């Protein structure tokens, strides 16, 4: 196989898939890190975000990429609302109850998507797009935009977390919640910020998946487990770890077909997950152990 084919048909799709996983995994790892629970509604929240973008495209006739920021804001508001309504009052109780609540939210979101938008697969823009060539590498505009958006999101988030007062407060909360509270960090504010960011990231990951494939009510649910694998692989609570984990999971999934039958592609994420839990439960970048 020519190197260029290998890049075009295995590496680039792997990176693309990995980028989508990464954006979702960042949210999961942040919820894990700060609120200490596995957020099972993450995938369905991504679905919701993707469909909200579809609604924005339909209502205002804007291009999908213009709809994305709007969808991110709306999904962020939704995420904050969900937290206030369904998770917040469980904060002092065992984490399992919040996990269960998030499972319930997942079901409710999926059902809403089915009722509002129906069950047919849909796309933002009809037709197919053949790729452009950049030094032999085949890329479609939407793929280019996806990569760019992921970079923008990761850089912006990193700057926010490293340089801003509240970003640092969020890291502090993830690092050592008791001490953060002793330092006077307001829990509620951090939680509000967290869900704003998580909601926006969910919308982004759902949107990117949808624009590269189709929108279906189950799309996010299928995304959930690879995203968990990515978050744990990178190290819980580590944003850069989630990105790394996402890229690795995406890449390994795409490359797995070289050595395994295609129907086991879905298993690769879990195998990676189990291996990492066994060998290095803190993840590649030394995350938290819950």
């Amino acid at each position, binding site marked *: *196989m020519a190197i260029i*084919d290998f890049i*075009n*048909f*295995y590496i680039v*799709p*792997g990176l*693309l*898939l990995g980028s*989508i996983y990464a954006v979702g995994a960042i949210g999961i790892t942040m919820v894990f890190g700060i609120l200490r629970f596995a957020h099972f509604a993450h995938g369905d929240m991504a679905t919701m975000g993707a469909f909200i973008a579809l609604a924005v495209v339909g209502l205002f006739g804007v291009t999908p990429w213009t709809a994305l920021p709007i969808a991110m804001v709306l999904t962020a508001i939704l995420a904050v609302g969900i937290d206030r309504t369904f998770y917040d009052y469980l904060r002092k109780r065992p984490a399992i109850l919040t996990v269960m609540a998030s499972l319930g939210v997942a079901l409710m979101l999926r059902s809403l998507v*089915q009722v509002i938008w129906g*069950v*047919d*697969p*849909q*796309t933002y823009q*009809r*037709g*197919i*797009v*053949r*790729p452009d060539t950049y030094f032999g590498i*085949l890329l*479609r505009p939407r793929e280019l935009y996806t990569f760019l958006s992921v970079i923008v999101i990761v850089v912006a988030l990193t700057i926010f977390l490293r340089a801003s007062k509240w970003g640092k407060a969020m890291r502090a909360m993830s690092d050592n919640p008791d001490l953060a509270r002793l330092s006077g960090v307001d829990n509620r504010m951090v939680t509000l910020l967290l869900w704003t960011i998580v909601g926006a990231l969910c919308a982004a990951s759902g949107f990117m*998946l949808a624009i*590269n*494939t*189709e929108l*279906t*009510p*189950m*799309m996010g*649910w*299928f*995304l959930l487990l690879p995203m968990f694998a990515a978050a744990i692989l990178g190290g819980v609570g580590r944003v850069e770890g989630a990105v790394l984990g996402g890229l690795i999971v*995406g890449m390994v*999934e*795409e*490359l*797995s*077909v*070289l050595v395994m*039958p*295609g*129907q086991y*592609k*879905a298993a690769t994420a879990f195998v990676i997950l189990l291996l990492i839990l066994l060998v290095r439960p803190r993840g590649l970048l030394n995350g938290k152990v819950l």
Partner: protein
Amino acid sequence: MKLKTTAGLIASLLGAALIAAPAQAQDARIALLGGISGPIAAMAPPMIAASELAVKQVNEQGGIGNGGTLRHVVGDSACNPQNATDAATKAVNIDRVIGIVGPHCSGAVLAAANSVAVPAGVLMITPSGTSPQITAIDDKDLVFRTVPSDDYQGRALARTIKERGMAKVAVAYLNNDYGKGLAESFKAEFEALGGEIAGYSAHEDGKASYRSDLAQLARGGADTLVIFDYGDGTGLTLLRQALENNFFTNYVGADGMKSDAVIRELGADNLETFFTSAPVGEASESLENFRAAFSAAGGNPDAIFTTTAYDAAFLMALAIEKAGGDRAKLSESLRAVASAPGEPILPGEWAKAKQLIAEGKDIDYKGAAGDHEFNQAGDVAGNYAFFKVSGDTYEAIADMK
């Protein structure tokens, strides 16, 4: 004590349900069970709508028996055995149906037939359960299907595309009973004919990317990709990614791919080398009758399995009419109305059929998806045509032998 409370709760809820459902003696009740929620959620509503069209036509053209109405309930089999048996049990015991059209998925059919329909003596016709396992059910002649076992279609498709000069193909199939059944029979026949399978792989539902799968398939040098999947599911993603990357020249699907979603989302211009097979009736007016009626009713005749779903419901109604509503005679009557010889009845011709039955004449339903000459096991032989995309719809370009 708790048991009593629970039982009381069940009883009161059921009571409420029953009050809401008055039954009249001369009416006949059937159930339409479909995978409304679950993995084939996108396919189920049009299929249900097609079956309902048959029910509507029956009632508009004289109803059942002497002034009776054909009533139906819609149940969700969710494509899994748990929900399928639940829905079938409710249909049989609470709604007192005498026939079930459905369920849609083979696993659901197996469970619902084995633990509900057959023991309870209720006739069941599935429009889309394609697994060969259904043939083997010990069914007391109560389980039928209007969709051929995937064996027929896979083989017919192999012969057709071999004839059309596609000698080296790659096969991508969805890892479920539908995809796998087609892929296996296709492969066997295609290789027997001297064709070369240059790539053969299964894929799971719901993954975000299939590009490396496709690249892997393309490595064998095949110019044609045969996709056994659903056009409003993963098959759409797969076809899109294959087209966008120019992995192959020709794309061929079975009936599952003959979905309007494919044309709607990918665009007809991009589908000039996309072909599908699908079951059709021998008399071409059969399909036309159905298409016209279903379009008029707001349905989409290109949606998957709508023809078989319509035929299943129409056949059920014919059998009920023939049996005079007698549950015990139902399967015998079904065989009578479906098989030659007899006066041909096309989709929508309920009034004519009703009159012939009343006169004691033999009829033979020639459906939108085939003639439905049931064999011993309640299976039908397939009758297929080869379709290409033309404008916003599919156009038959050849019969498949």
